[in-house]
């Protein structure tokens, strides 16, 4: 069934439509939450709470796009709240050295080596760690757009900010990540 039909039926109170929407979005929500909180228990809490809240807010949903952005907004806000509650220390990646000239060359050299799978894994882990060190809003923007593949419009709606802010956050975050990566690869 089309997403639009499902959302319309869900707004009217159809429980089966809601169950189907949960099945369609649960992995995405869990994935976002896991990337933000980096553990299963918190990701589970965010996922469950997101769907309970979306059910409570079903009368506020206007259309399919709004439904998607509302899910993202609820999930990310709840995850941010959890992060703040835990009072995790964020080590800013701003204090890295000057941007090194060619991260790309270093990355290419790593992926061409005989142990490329292992090195790729290490590279991925370094990037992941770098994402975890970004300031919260940049981190959320990168996770939603670059990692999970949501559009800038969807991310902007989810975060309640203009698209230009999303674009700006992405540029800053990626520049920091490249610096971080270059420093670690050196």
């Amino acid at each position, binding site marked *: 069934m089309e997403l639009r039909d499902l959302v319309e039926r869900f707004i009217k109170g159809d*429980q089966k439509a*809601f*169950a189907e929407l*949960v*099945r369609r979005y*649960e*992995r995405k929500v*869990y*994935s976002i939450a*896991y*990337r933000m909180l980096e553990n*299963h228990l918190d*990701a*589970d809490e965010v*996922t*469950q709470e997101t*769907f*309970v809240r979306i*059910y*409570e807010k079903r009368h506020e949903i206007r259309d399919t796009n709004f439904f998607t952005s509302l899910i993202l907004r609820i999930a990310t806000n709840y995850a941010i709240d959890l992060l703040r509650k835990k009072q995790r220390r964020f080590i800013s990646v701003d204090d890295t050295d000057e941007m090194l*000239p*060619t*991260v*790309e060359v270093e*990355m*290419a050299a790593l992926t061409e080596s005989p142990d490329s799978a292992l090195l*790729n894994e290490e*590279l*991925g882990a370094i*990037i*992941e760690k770098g*994402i975890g060190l970004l300031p919260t809003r940049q981190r959320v923007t*990168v996770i939603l*757009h*670059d*990692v999970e*593949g949501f559009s*800038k419009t969807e991310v902007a709606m989810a975060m309640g900010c203009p698209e230009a802010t999303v*674009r700006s956050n*992405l*540029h800053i975050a*990626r520049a920091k*990540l*490249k610096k971080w*990566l270059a420093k670690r690869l050196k």
Partner: protein
Amino acid sequence: MNCREIHFYIDDYLSGSFSPGLREEFEGHLQSCFDCRNFADEEKNLMERMRDRAVPEPPPGYWEQLETRIGARVLADEIGKIGAEYVPSGSRAAMWRILVPLAAVLVLMFLSFSWKEPSGGMRASSFSPELIGNYSVVQMEFRADTVSVPEIMNSLLLTSPGMAGYGLIQMERLTRMGWEEF
């Protein structure tokens, strides 16, 4: 297109959302500018690697359990809402706090004026205080021993109209239990 625009539109280029004309213009600049070409490659590499990272799979059976838990939570909320319709809260409660005593007062007034005392009189002392419970005003009136039921009702209206609803219930209860005796 200049270097600044390349940096600004790099996402649109990489996501393929450019029109053919713009794409050609973008790639034309990349061919002629080493820095921008390098920048575009870095961005592409970084984004590809970020998307490659999969989240660890949760424990077996997790998704089914999650769906069950969400269903149970939603059902519990629905039941809670149904309950809330019978247990007023917030502004609804405030409305009920005014309307119920008011209605009770009106009913008491009606009963009071339409009451006809049975022959031989009905004495308040005929009612056992235990039947009345903790309602002190009613208890006090009943213990006076000389007060008739209409007088008790009038007294209730005057002394504690806010509690008149409760008084009415108690009065009905007493009437139901003791009426045959009078």
